[in-house]
């Protein structure tokens, strides 16, 4: 095993030279003519797919092709909430598989992804919320997922900063509590997978947009890129907000629409939010970064949009929602905001599997909530590409569920954009 990426000594040594001499984490690769598998999109999901293709399925010859830079899409723009407390069996199994991978990910990648299992609260503000929350807790437990229902005092004990007084407009009546949920460092996830994949021989090719597909008689033979044509036995599309555009290049349509999703951070303050707090009712989700900033996520802008920016009123609403939960934050200043482009699906569940074109596969539709499934998504998609068949975990998430009617409606558990 090669030397570790970071340790106390390398930190000290690099500090002496003002951090100018850190080695590259992954090799800069130029495309070869042919690969066993090409993954389009170097977000977390694409990189994880490439990693597991080599690591679990023994492929030796894999490329990840990225039009911009590693982790520059939603992976590097999200609010990093990780949990697995989804309602339906299909989702519960998929997200829980991912959460288990998260628990060993730093060791697996030999790179600190700063996965912090600080617990996730999903607040209930109405009698109906409470019923739904309890139903979800029970469903989770039947699926072996850690879940508890906390009453008002329980919520206050976990997160004392929340205003739980009954006089609020949206009083907090209780919450679901998943202790194993938490947050991770988004950039580190992309970099860790890129580094680990590169060490296994995967070519990570940046600044190389895919502009079309080589399709012969309904069979995909490769891609056309800004750096020329590259052929491959199998191709996987993992491009989040750009999924419809890539599907269009291959001549098929997807039931997804692309929307702006925004987030923002406050100035850094002392530790005050010890866990992740989410509320579907007032539509807020917040956690506190190690630097002390509050990380706040907004809802999607309803309109379609590819501009990686949304409208100001959406941020204003998010701030108002936060103050409903934590009136004490009213004087906090916001430092910066940004946006990504998310691909939302009609049933708030992803699409992972085959396309109408042979040897062309797609992993998309994660919308506002796919960061949590980064390792699991890559793991099942690698299986799908390597064997040509979905793994039982992702079989229910096929594209043809929209024709068969077997939708997996997770609007309740997805709740807020997260």
């Amino acid at each position, binding site marked *: 095993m090669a030397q570790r990426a970071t340790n106390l000594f390398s930190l000290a040594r690099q500090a002496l030279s003002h951090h100018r001499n850190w080695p590259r984490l992954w090799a800069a690769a130029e495309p070869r003519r042919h690969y066993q598998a090409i993954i389009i999109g170097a977000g977390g999901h694409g990189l994880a797919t490439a990693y597991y293709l080599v690591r679990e399925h023994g492929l030796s010859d894999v490329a990840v092709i990225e039009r911009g830079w590693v982790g520059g899409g939603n992976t590097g723009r999200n609010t990093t909430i990780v949990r697995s407390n989804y309602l339906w069996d299909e989702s519960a199994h998929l997200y829980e598989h991912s959460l288990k991978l998260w628990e060993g990910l730093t060791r697996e990648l030999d790179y600190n992804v700063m996965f912090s299992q600080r617990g996730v609260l999903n607040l209930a503000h109405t009698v109906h919320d409470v019923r739904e929350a309890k139903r979800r807790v029970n469903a989770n437990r039947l699926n072996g997922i850690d879940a508890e229902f906390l009453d008002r005092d329980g919520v206050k004990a976990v997160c004392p900063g929340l205003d739980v007084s009954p006089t609020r407009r949206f009083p907090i009546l209780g919450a679901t509590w998943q202790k194993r949920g938490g947050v991770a460092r988004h950039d580190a996830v992309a970099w860790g997978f890129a580094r680990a994949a590169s060490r296994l021989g995967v070519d990570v090719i940046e600044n190389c947009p895919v502009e079309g597909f080589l399709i012969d008689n309904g069979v995909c033979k490769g891609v056309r890129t800004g750096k020329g044509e590259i052929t491959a036995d199998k191709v996987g599309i993992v491009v989040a907000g*750009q999924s*419809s*555009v890539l599907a*269009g290049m291959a001549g098929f*349509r*997807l*039931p*997804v*629409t*692309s929307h702006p999703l925004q987030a923002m951070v406050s100035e850094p303050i002392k530790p005050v939010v010890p866990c992740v707090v989410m509320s579907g009712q007032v539509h807020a989700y917040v956690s506190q970064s190690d630097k002390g900033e509050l990380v706040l996520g907004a809802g999607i802008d*309803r*309109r*379609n*949009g*590819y*501009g990686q920016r949304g*409208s*100001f*009123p959406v941020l204003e609403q998010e701030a108002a929602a936060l103050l409903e939960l934590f009136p004490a934050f009213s004087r906090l200043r916001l430092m910066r905001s940004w946006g990504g482009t998310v691909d939302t699906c*009609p049933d708030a569940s992803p699409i992972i599997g085959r396309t109408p074109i042979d040897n062309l596969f797609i992993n998309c539709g994660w919308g506002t909530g796919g960061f949590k499934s980064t390792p699991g998504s890559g793991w099942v998609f690698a299986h799908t590409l390597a064997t040509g068949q979905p793994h039982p975990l992702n079989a229910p998430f096929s594209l043809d569920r*929209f*024709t*068969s*009617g077997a939708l997996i409606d997770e609007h309740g558990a997805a709740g807020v954009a997260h």
Partner: protein
Amino acid sequence: MLRISCPWCGPRDETEFGYGGQAHLKRPDNPEALDDAAWAEFLFLRDNPEGPFVERWVHSHGCRRWFNAVRDTKTDRVIATYRPDETPPEAAKMVLKGQEGGR
């Protein structure tokens, strides 16, 4: 924030409007005659272009009427708006030609 021009009321802030997605979708005349794939297409498949898009908006906090717009989804520029009973302007016609659902 977008400024959108309601064909009846003139330019207003985006917050006055609701969004209705792809415009000029037509409910199949004879739904029971469709097979599952065609029905799924009507229910779930929408155009999702990066660039000019013909879409519906409703002036919820104004005249409460629906209308159509051509907007570039990449730049957010609103290129044209028009009433549902008007013939679509050139900008819309060009997009509609390539738009699958626009029958």
